[in-house]
């Protein structure tokens, strides 16, 4: 592909492109995010400014901090050592949080606007987001205060360009990975495997990512030749994303449902459980046949592998082991569970008017949670490699998750759930997010840590662990009672929930 077909230079020069820029501007300022009171917007603006100043200050003093930690060594070199690690974490965060800015193409597809230019425009526009700007708020003060001062100002420029290149790589890569997630999850898994093996190589001192990072960014400061590699890779990722979009920029591909042949499936194993089994079957289909829920499930599944990063690097004290255990065994429950009931907002009326017993409805969800925790726990046995203690802690947290956390999640779900339109894409889609999602995290994360801590302080480590097992065990034994309480709760809330969903 030649540079002219890339057409980057033409993007902003034609009248329709100017219109597009105007539209994105309007889209941004008319988005529902701003449909709050002017005062709230003002406060948000102040907060944003404050954070930006903090970041800038942090960038400025980063050199001093590094000098304190590693006296006598060049802070620039030390910072460069960490940069690639930063970008590794960054790609992970982006994958989880960065929006894909592309759905806005739809209204233009039937108009005489050059489709290729549209795609270039959207992709370039994607560079303008918080993920891409925040790093420069920190990096520029550092470049001015340290690199330009102690090395050279051209070196500072090159260094910034190197960051820009890696930033771009992460930006386009995460967009690509997220777009193929629903269609070809194997690509994402493959990439995740690649990252995991890189980290493993680093952990076993076979390849030091940090040394490579230092070599690269130090090199960039002295000689622009070092920029060629990162810039080339950035161009490559751009091309991959561009080609992917060019190929898929048809209306049907943006619609949730491709008109591919769907087989009616019947998970016969679940038939044994009568109504409850059928409800679980429907919920599994819900998860797998809708983009938003499917990505939640896949992301939760990826979290199971997170242990390969957490255990080698995160230390093995009891409290982090509990938190890691929560993340690994409970991620699906927390992630999917925070929108429980909301997922079904599209047909909740039908569930209410139909012969669905509310207690069965709750049991189905409880079993689904239990199955996910058990499955994740079984997988987590592999972490025994990093120490048998991990298995013990994960088992305790898994039992606690099943017996206690699951009920907390189920109970929280009955608080004012919001409507979710499953046909909408998921990313940066905060539809359905209410206060309860944030409140939920406090007991869920805090309770097991608190319980363990309490018994650890009074009796000792073993007692702490036993307390988690016992609490979870009691919760499991009381399944019937909890189910009954929740059924009553759901019956009380049914009108409110149904009317929320009708809005």
């Amino acid at each position: 592909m030649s540079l002219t077909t890339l057409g980057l230079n033409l993007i902003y020069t034609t009248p329709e492109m100017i219109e597009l820029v105007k539209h994105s501007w309007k889209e941004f300022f008319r988005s529902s995010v701003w449909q709050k009171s002017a005062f709230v917007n003002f406060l948000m603006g102040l907060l944003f400014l404050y954070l930006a100043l903090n970041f800038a200050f942090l960038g400025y003093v980063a050199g001093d901090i590094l000098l304190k930690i590693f006296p006598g060594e060049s802070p620039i070199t030390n910072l460069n050592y960490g940069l690639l690690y930063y970008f590794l974490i960054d790609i992970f965060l982006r994958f989880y949080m960065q929006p894909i800015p592309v759905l806005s193409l739809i209204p233009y597809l039937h108009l005489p606007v050059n489709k290729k230019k549209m795609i270039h425009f959207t992709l370039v526009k994607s560079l303008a987001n918080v993920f891409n700007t925040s790093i420069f708020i920190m990096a520029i003060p550092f470049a001015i205060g340290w690199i330009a001062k102690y090395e050279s100002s051209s070196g500072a420029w090159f260094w910034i360009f190197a960051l820009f290149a890696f930033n771009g790589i992460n930006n386009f890569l995460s967009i690509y990975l997220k777009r193929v997630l629903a269609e070809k999850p194997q690509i994402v898994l493959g990439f995740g495997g690649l990252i995991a093996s890189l980290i493993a190589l680093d952990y076993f001192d076979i390849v030091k990512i940090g040394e490579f990072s230092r070599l690269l960014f130090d090199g960039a400061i002295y000689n622009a030749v070092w920029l060629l590699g990162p810039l080339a890779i950035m161009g490559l990722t751009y091309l991959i994303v561009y080609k992917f979009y060019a190929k898929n920029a048809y209306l049907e591909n943006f619609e949730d449902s491709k008109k591919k042949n769907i087989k009616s499936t019947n998970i016969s194993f679940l038939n044994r459980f009568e109504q409850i089994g059928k409800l679980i079957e429907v919920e599994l289909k819900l998860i797998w046949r809708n983009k938003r829920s499917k990505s939640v499930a896949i992301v939760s599944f990826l979290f199971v592998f997170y242990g390969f990063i957490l255990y080698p690097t995160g230390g093995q004290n009891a409290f982090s082991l509990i938190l890691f255990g929560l993340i690994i065994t409970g991620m699906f429950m927390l992630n999917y569970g925070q929108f429980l009931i909301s997922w079904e907002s599209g047909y909740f009326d039908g569930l209410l008017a139909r012969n669905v017993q509310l207690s069965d409805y709750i049991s189905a969800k409880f079993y689904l949670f239990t199955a996910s925790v058990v499955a994740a726990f079984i997988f987590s046995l592999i972490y025994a490699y990093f120490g048998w203690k991990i298995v013990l802690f994960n088992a305790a947290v898994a039992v606690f998750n099943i017996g206690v956390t699951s009920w907390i999640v189920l109970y929280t779900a009955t608080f004012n759930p919001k409507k979710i339109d499953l046909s909408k894409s998921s990313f940066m889609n905060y539809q359905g997010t209410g206060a309860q999602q944030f409140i939920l995290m406090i007991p869920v994360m805090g309770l097991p840590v608190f319980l363990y801590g309490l018994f650890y302080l009074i009796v000792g480590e073993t007692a702490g662990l036993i307390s988690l097992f016992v609490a979870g065990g009691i919760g499991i034994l009381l399944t019937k009672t909890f189910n009954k309480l929740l059924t009553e709760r759901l019956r009380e809330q049914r009108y409110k929930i149904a009317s929320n969903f009708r809005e």
Partner: protein
Amino acid sequence: MISINNLTKLYGDFSALDIESLNIEKGESFGLVGNNGAGKTTMFRSMLDLIQPTSGTATFKDVVTSNSEAWKNFTGSYLDERFLIDFLTAEEYFHFIGKLHSLSAQQVDEFVGQFEGFFHNEILGKSKYLRDFSKGNQKKIGIVAALIGEPEILILDEPFANLDPSTQIKLKALLKKLKEEREVTMLISSHDLNHVADVCERIVVLEHGKIVHDIKTNENTLKELETYFAG
């Protein structure tokens, strides 16, 4: 079979529904007409326990619908697409509803098979999710799903809307047959006076949530209704 007692729904000061008393006999086919905002859907929803009435109750066969779930065993209903699980195929949806009435997949297939004509070969065996069907076909699926489990009470909101003419005719025949063969108590709302007058023995006109007419259908009913709505 069905009795409504002092059923009201207020939204702030606005009275959406205000029915002092209404009794519907077993096997009666009951039509509900009224302009937009007259309270038809509100009435059905509060009867089906989907919204909380400000006061009053609806009783299906001695079961107060807001107190127990037992009425769901013998009540089939379809109000709108919120009753459909849009990521299932038609068969999967029918099987799900069948399971709720303890019917095996085979029994459901047999039952649904007799509606092949009503479906006009556009629904069964089509590898599509419900959300990909047209509005009219979605309605057909919802109506047939409401019939699964041999309901004694059938509640349909605007069943004729969005249907093509031949399906409208088939639906009328279907409803008449249900009444004759199984004595199903039917509540049907519609904007189409012709259809209601054709299918229902008794027609109630709602206005501002209140019953303003309660007529036994005869040959003059259609005229009466037309005069009412013209004025």
